[in-house]
């Protein structure tokens, strides 16, 4: 075992001191050390997108990121996009619910993070741009159409905050 050391990680706007070993993968640290279990691990190999988080404004895969490498950067997880004070859901989360874009829900945090990041950087994407932005997120339940509609509707209704 490699010795764990205390590392300050900036997660959802908060500095957290977490026990991290050099060979720890970010998704495990988020779930087990930070107790943020919203981020899911599917394949662990970069193929499914379930583990998507946002680091410094980019949607990336926490299963292929060393936790140490993310220290000092701004990490946003699914827990971090609701209103910090009121706990009210983000517009994209509401839109997923309203459009029935969630079934088993396993892909949902990753889907929402990719969608959220797209709308933040490109408030009025075309359907093709949405499809492309979500092409690294697999869903085995919904057939994708309702997800695309949820993202499109969210953009049309004023986007993400």
């Amino acid at each position, binding site marked *: *075992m*490699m010795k764990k050391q205390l590392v300050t990680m900036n997660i959802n706007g908060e500095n957290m001191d977490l026990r991290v*070993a*050099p*060979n720890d*993968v970010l998704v*495990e640290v988020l779930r087990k050390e930070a107790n943020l279990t919203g981020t899911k*691990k599917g394949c*662990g*190999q*970069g*193929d499914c*997108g379930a583990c*998507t988080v946002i680091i410094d404004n*980019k*949607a*990336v*895969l926490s*299963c*292929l*990121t*060393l936790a*140490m*490498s993310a220290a*000092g950067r701004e990490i946003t997880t699914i827990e971090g996009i609701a209103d910090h004070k009121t706990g009210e859901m983000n517009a994209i989360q509401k839109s997923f619910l309203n459009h029935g874009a969630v079934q088993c829900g396993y892909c949902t945090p990753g889907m929402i993070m*990719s969608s959220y990041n797209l709308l933040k950087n490109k408030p009025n994407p075309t359907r093709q741009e949405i499809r*492309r*932005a979500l*092409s*690294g*997120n697999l869903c085995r339940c919904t057939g994708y159409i309702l997800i695309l509609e949820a993202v499109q509707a969210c953009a049309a209704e004023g986007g993400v905050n």
Partner: protein
Amino acid sequence: MNILTPFEYFRPTTVDEALELLATKENAKIIAGGSDLMIQLKEKMIHPSNVIDITHIPELQEFKCEEGKGAVLGACVTDAFCEFSEELKAKFPAFSYAAGEIGGPQVREMGTIAGNLANSGPSAETPSSLICYDAQLVLAKKGSERTVDVKDFITGNRRNILEEGEMIKQIIIPEPDPNTKVKYSYVAMRRMMEIDIANMCIRVDLDGDTIKDARCVMGSVAIKPLISEKVPEVLRGTKLGDEEVILKAAEAAQSEVHPITDVRATAQYRVDVIGALVRRILRELAAENK
């Protein structure tokens, strides 16, 4: 499988610091985006004692693409950056397109072009277009630097000329001649998140619609990018878009490849795909030159 074999982690903030670590730490591996390396660590294909993270070095993020001066990419310039850069799209469309066809969006945000080259996988997306654009690499190790052509960099399946302690520092793509046209295409099982069955990049140097010279580089059909000898011979001196020539060029390329059968395609199918790619690319180049 998801617990990595222990290693020490280093995070230099300058190139010199990184080169010093590479020179002194035993059994060290560079990590950039990690999109190839993390998989190899998880699969226990490699067991580095030291992992050197180069993504916190500002110098390696630098990107220059000035009028008339080609482009210079620091080693940590990402696939996604190259996909979206308006300057690269305008000057090096085939390369920008190839970068945008790697994996999915998250993989492209993480992955770097230097990592794609250094990983030297046979199906890698970007070497063929970089070779067509005459790209070069600046390789650095403690106390010395050398510049090599991308075409001489990859030597086999996951093999390249990087020496112990050496890293890719920059990718240099020279300014293209306005009469040079380059196009990249590939065939895969599906549109996104796939590994290519075969990919190809063709470059033609034109005088009007006459091909003065040409280059054809094929990926995923050999242990390293295959530079065709016969396709340029067929194309030189002909008119771009001549159907008879196109068919001959396709046959020439097919005669040069001896691919393998694997889970993605049979050898015969790969040969068929190579013919299709030559025809497709030459027809598209001709249509765009009208």
